[in-house]
């Protein structure tokens, strides 16, 4: 990947990136440092994931070359002047800039091959960069969107935290070494609370992506990754998208992505000032809005966007571990959207009974309105059931009253009877809520099979819905029977568990008695 991009870079012309990076002071000194760095680069090329501890602060520039040099080695001889120049140029710049050392110059946005082109460009394009010199640490719009999606996949509420363990599992997937991840966490968790807010998460993700692409980790958090900056810079992705559009029109191809991103950011800052809406709370909405506007914005954007992610994926996926191919935005988006929300599960289910496919138990309850009422908890059989059923009956009875008041009256006592024999089982609450909802929707449906059948038959004359009711009742009956079977099985399992637990308790009590005389207080 690198070689390809390098080839492009070498020969492609830097017209594209104007404002990208650092200025390029001395080409001469660059060459010297470049040759010096060759050896290191080769060594480092072997182990791109360097331990942050191993990188002495004095040599960040060397590190910068690691990832990019990778593919550059071939081109070095031929394009020595072009490539090293930008790097070297950056190095003095880096050193002068101090804190944002990490690799401002050499670090192009991961996404774009244009980055690499920018290196050759930088020489010529005296920087017209915006406020912050550390471009590589800037989060582009697509990156931001991707990070927000990933955040939401871990934590639905954008204004809340991701806990440490969740984040740890997630970031461990990136296959970086633990000390590096530990260091990245240290950098990004500004308040050291063991949890990541959205800007902190974006910063951490950005650092990981950077590290995966070979950029050495900075000594301290770059200003563009500070939570304050991130919150301010990305209040409303909508606006950024709009800016994106306007920019795409003026420029061709993916190379402009970089420029447009930069311009966007400059304009975003203005937009941020104009739109003091809360950042985190709206990022979720904004990203969605962004997507919608992006869709509207369409072809130009899309032409750019696919180009960028493709480049990024080609760039990143190849040299780095594929398992973390999430660096590609498209894949990332998909991943963010992929995990379907699991069907709701009752919290009260016994652990061992989890093998039971409760979906089957639940599903019948949904269409068959009253079936949910059937399995009330054995401990409180009649009462909640009765109240539930009463409510259900009330809900039902109201609409039914309009039709057949007498029949409703009949059905209610019968229903109560059926409820008095509850089949057992947990998670009734869910059933209840579903029942109530469904009951309200289908007041005509009845609870117990027989009672429902009876009531169904009792309503033959109930308007046109009688046939529908019959069908509904029959399906309800069927599902209730299934639910009954399931619940009966569950009951037997639970009984067994109860026995086992009893036995354990007895054993523990025995142990306690044995230990008692021994302990002398």
């Amino acid at each position: 990947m690198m070689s390809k991009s390098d080839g492009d870079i070498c020969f492609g012309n830097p017209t594209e990136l104007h404002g990208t990076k650092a200025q390029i002071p001395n080409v001469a000194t660059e060459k010297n440092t470049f040759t010096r760095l060759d050896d290191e680069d080769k060594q480092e090329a072997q182990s791109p994931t360097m331990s942050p501890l191993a990188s002495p602060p004095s040599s960040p520039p060397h590190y910068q070359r690691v990832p990019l040099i990778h593919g550059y080695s071939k081109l070095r001889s031929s394009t020595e002047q072009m490539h090293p120049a930008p790097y070297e140029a950056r190095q003095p710049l880096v050193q002068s800039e101090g804190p944002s050392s990490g690799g401002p110059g050499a670090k192009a946005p991961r996404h774009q091959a244009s980055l690499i082109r920018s290196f050759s460009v930088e020489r010529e394009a005296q920087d017209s960069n915006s406020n912050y010199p550390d471009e590589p640490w800037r989060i582009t719009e697509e990156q931001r969107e991707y990070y927000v999606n990933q955040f939401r996949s871990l934590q639905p509420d954008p204004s809340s935290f991701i806990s440490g363990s969740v984040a740890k599992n997630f970031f461990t997937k990136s296959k970086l070494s633990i000390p590096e991840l530990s260091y990245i966490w240290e950098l990004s968790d500004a308040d050291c609370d063991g949890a990541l807010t959205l800007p902190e998460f974006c910063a951490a993700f950005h650092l990981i992506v950077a590290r995966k692409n070979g950029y050495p980790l900075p000594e301290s958090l770059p200003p563009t990754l500070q939570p304050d900056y991130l919150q301010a810079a990305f209040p409303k992705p909508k606006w950024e998208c709009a800016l994106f559009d306007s920019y795409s029109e003026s420029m061709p191809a993916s190379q402009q992505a970089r420029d447009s991103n930069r311009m966007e950011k400059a304009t975003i800052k203005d937009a941020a000032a104009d739109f003091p809406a809360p950042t985190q709370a709206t990022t979720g909405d904004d990203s969605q809005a962004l997507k919608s506007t992006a869709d509207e914005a369409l072809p130009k954007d899309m032409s750019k966007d696919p180009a960028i992610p493709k480049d990024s994926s080609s760039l990143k996926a190849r040299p780095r571990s594929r398992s973390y191919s999430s660096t590609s935005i498209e894949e990332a988006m998909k991943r963010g959207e992929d995990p379907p929300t699991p069907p709701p599960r009752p919290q009260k289910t016994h652990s061992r009974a989890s093998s039971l496919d409760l979906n089957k138990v639940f599903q019948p309850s949904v269409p068959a309105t009253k079936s949910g009422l059937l399995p009330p908890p054995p401990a409180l059989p009649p009462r909640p059931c009765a109240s539930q059923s009463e409510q259900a009956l009330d809900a039902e009875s109201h609409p039914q009253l309009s039709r057949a008041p007498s029949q409703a009256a009949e059905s209610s006592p019968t229903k109560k009877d059926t409820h008095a024999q509850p089949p057992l089982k947990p998670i009734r609450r869910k059933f209840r809520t579903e029942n109530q909802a469904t009951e309200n929707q289908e007041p005509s449906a009845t609870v117990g099979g027989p009672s429902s059948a009876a009531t169904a038959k009792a309503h033959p004359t109930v308007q046109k819905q009688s046939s529908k009711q019959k069908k509904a009742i029959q399906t309800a009956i069927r599902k209730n029977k299934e639910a009954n079977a399931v619940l009966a099985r569950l009951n037997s399992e639970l009984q067994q568990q109860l026995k086992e637990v009893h036995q354990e308790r007895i054993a523990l009590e025995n142990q306690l008695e044995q230990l008692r005389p021994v302990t002398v207080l």
Partner: protein
Amino acid sequence: MAVCVAVIAKENYPLYIRSVPTESELKFHYMVHTSLDVVDEKISAMGKALVDQRELYLGLLYPTEDYKVYGYVTNSKVKFVMVVDSSNTALRDNEIRSMFRKLHNSYTDVMCNPFYNPGDRIQSRAFDSMVTTMMIQVC
């Protein structure tokens, strides 16, 4: 101020030990090791009933001719030991306490990092830099 700073785990093995580069750094390691006995003594002397009331700062553990050793223990039995140059007479107790407090805060920050497993050696750069400031201060 500190010539040597060490963080000892509950099981009495070092999580972090760093000293001013001198000829005989090993001597500091020995001192820290021997100070652990004193720390344990102080902890047990407090009594089981006083666990809650026990102060974290243990004070001067033992003086030698060249150095003084101070101790601090957390509620999770993690010990911080600091060796200070005796010639530094301007060092007051409050300053030592504040240094230990800073150490404790940095240590909790390290613990907050989910990638840090309790019992591992401390490799946090922030912690390192904090200790460096403490050690440079004196000089």
